[in-house]
């Protein structure tokens, strides 16, 4: 019988993020969710991009893949497709997921492969020292926008909804319990799940602070049923005064792995490989 998991079961080493960084809240929420679902660290894989968020697997104990900037989703997809028994979590940044990596995100949403993608949306390129990101607010002053950012912020959730994601949610790293709830839901979702996590960067984003968010979020009360209404989700996402936090849309449709994998009982990763001489020879015969 496997030992009962507690939060320490998921600790690798102490984080070196700036004190106060929103990533601490996300780490905590992820641990709570993992404990609550009694996940086995060896059955989880966390794929991260490049950015402050990318260090996550250094601190959270599970299998980890720290890949390229913007390519969290394809790496995670490859893992999931060959081993759907793994819980595959992609942890990305607003730069990683919504600037360089946006294309992959939306195609994964369309495919409805069962991945949980968490975007640590600190609304800035932190690791590269503070440039504006697609989600930075208008007027945001940064080293790359000394006169203030001119374009309106991008909302990854709106795009994922349009692309056909079957689960979209928004959390806040200052609301750890709520976030843990969202992560649990996301982990249990059959299909593609995207959680955008508003997360303060205390070093490079002096606008979207914990205090600022407290004034600009509204948390849905939804411990019972999940909303499955595209129009409702769309209107929540178009609210200009507040960020609506919670599961904004959740639906079921056949997942990619259900549709394309040849064998429900065997993972590709678990196949025992043999030369299969006869089968290959039979195919070769066809060229006679």
């Amino acid at each position: 019988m496997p030992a009962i998991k507690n939060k320490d079961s998921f600790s690798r080493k102490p984080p070196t993020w700036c004190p106060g960084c929103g990533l601490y809240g996300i780490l905590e929420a992820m641990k709570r969710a993992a404990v609550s679902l009694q996940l086995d660290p060896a059955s989880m894989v966390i794929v991260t991009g490049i950015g402050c968020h990318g260090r996550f697997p250094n601190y959270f104990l599970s299998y980890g893949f720290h890949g390229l900037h913007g390519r969290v989703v394809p790496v995670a997809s490859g893992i999931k497709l060959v081993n759907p028994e793994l819980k595959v979590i992609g942890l990305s940044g607003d730069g990683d997921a919504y600037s360089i990596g946006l294309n992959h995100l939306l195609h994964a949403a369309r495919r409805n492969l069962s991945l949980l993608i968490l975007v640590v949306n600190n609304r800035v390129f932190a690791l590269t020292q503070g440039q504006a990101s697609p989600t930075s607010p208008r007027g945001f002053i940064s080293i790359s926008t000394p006169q203030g950012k001119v374009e309106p912020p991008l909302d990854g959730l709106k795009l994922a909804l349009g692309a056909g994601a079957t689960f979209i949610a928004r959390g806040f790293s200052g609301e750890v319990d709520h976030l843990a709830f969202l992560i649990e839901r996301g982990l249990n979702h059959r299909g593609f799940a995207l959680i955008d996590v508003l997360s303060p960067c205390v070093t490079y984003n002096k606008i979207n602070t914990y205090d600022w968010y407290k004034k600009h979020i509204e948390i849905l009360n939804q411990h019972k049923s999940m909303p499955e209404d595209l129009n409702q989700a769309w209107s929540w996402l178009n609210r200009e005064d507040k960020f609506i936090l919670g599961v904004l849309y959740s639906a079921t449709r056949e997942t990619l792995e259900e549709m394309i994998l040849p064998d429900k009982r065997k993972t590709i990763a678990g196949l025992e490989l043999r030369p299969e001489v006869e089968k290959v020879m039979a195919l070769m015969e066809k060229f006679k």
Partner: protein
Amino acid sequence: MTKEGGKRQATGDISILIGGKAGDGVLFTGNILARLLKRYGWWAVTYRDFPSNIRGEPTRYFVRASQERIENRRERVDLLLAFDCEALVRHMPALNSGAVILCDGADAAILSHSLSSEISSFALPLRQPAREKFGHEIYKNMMAIGALGYLLGLEIRPVEDMVRDLFLERKGEAVVEANLRAVRLGYELAQKGIPQEKRWFLPRFPHDSKIILMGDEAIALGALAAGCRFFAAYPICPASEIWQWLTPRIKDFGGVVIQVEDELAALNMVIGAAFAGARAMTSTSGPGASLMMEAFSLAGMAEVPVVIAHVQRVGPSTGMPTKTQQGDLLQWIFGSHGEFPRIVLAPGNLEECFHFTIDAFNLAEKFQGPVVILIDLDLGQNLRTAEFPLAEGWTIDRGKLLSPAELLKIKPYKRYEITDDGISPRVIPGTPEGIHLVESVEHGEDGLRSEDPDIREKMMGKRMRKLKAIAPDLPPPTLFGFPEAETAVIAVGSTRGPILEAMKYMEKEGKPIKFLQLRTLWPFPAEVVSRFLQKARHLVVIENNFTGQLLALIKSQVIFDPALKVEGLRKFSPDNFTPDEIFRGLKEICQQ
């Protein structure tokens, strides 16, 4: 080819050219003809020359068949089937004396006046009767096959079998019937118009020991044989054939092919799948290869075994997507950022396409990194005849991949353990007690990021050492010809065939040659090449590109004797080398 009396002299080698416009079914017709000739027990090869445009522009397709093994078309042809008069005019210069032309077009007869007396031309109405008799122009292709069958003196039975093989399963009996009628009609029309003495009568041999296919298909077969069970790719000429062939077939092997949004996704997804334990692969060509450069470096750093097939086309940039070139030889060797171990294999024929793909997977898992299979459009997309089977028994060696039981003996498990051979035991995610981190950032043995100079040096050493460890497993160069010859040829890939043929012609002229076919481009087989060059006085590097990339590579790895005369025989027009060209080139060089 000369004629004698009422019948042509027996020939052991015949070249046929089919010309028309894209959309005419030139490819279809040529493919069937090549397969037919193979079923006649001949060694058939093709050469496709198509525009990158769906319809309307000129295309040509060579089919050559010989009683001896051949790998490439010749320059001149004995038989031309022209789907229009434009094709007739265009291809007249390629005709051998004694050649026969069949042309669908009213002006064919007029045009034939301008021909030398050694060449005969016949109008062969195709489009119109096809439309009239079968309601669709498409039947002209089968009629053409019938006419060619008449002219080549083929028996009807194999032709009929072929038609059945083609259509019965997917289209049903009615379609088979219509096509058979079209074949017969073509035969009859030819019979009416073409005198007996213009015909060849190709003898029939047993064909069961041979197969006919493209290099792309041989690679796909190799992938299945190697245990490749995950393939992600984005469409691109001339590499799509690999995964498109696999798509309906890999299921039977428990695997999956996925078409993804772009090449960045393709290689990253393959890396994810390989990390998770599958044998995984992608394929691409020039522009896509450039897009894969970043993830290539990731595979090297993270030490993930992946296989990438690159089928070269004409560059730079979009270039000429449907034409052949060896213009990307150095990209995988010196391209990408940073330094990491990589292996580049370069098959030169169908057997090698198959075999090296199996090698690629074994090598990738044994040295834990990216392996590239580099061919070109010529080898990838043209049909060639090979011995059946392409290989006889092969093994799968997963290298230091630990089973859960083996893992339990190691404690603590370190993914990037520093070992003598540089290769660290690997464990796949999901394995209890094997938890680890795979990193694109410089890291210690435990996979955790490290910026310690000492660790950096050790890790670079560890990674690069792997290439030494794997060296004995790499396909060595093959030596052909006369080891004592003064003229030494080095080449790689698809030029192998035409070089071997040209060497025969050189031999007949009393000019012995030795030829080293490189089969692993990286790590470079410097010692073998040095030894090969030791007594040579003349080095000719033959390659299908402008700048002489192979020569530059050789020079970068081997110190030449300054007395060695070094020459490049290159071609960068959008066609492959013919044996004839190489023969002429070598003769000229040897005369200097």
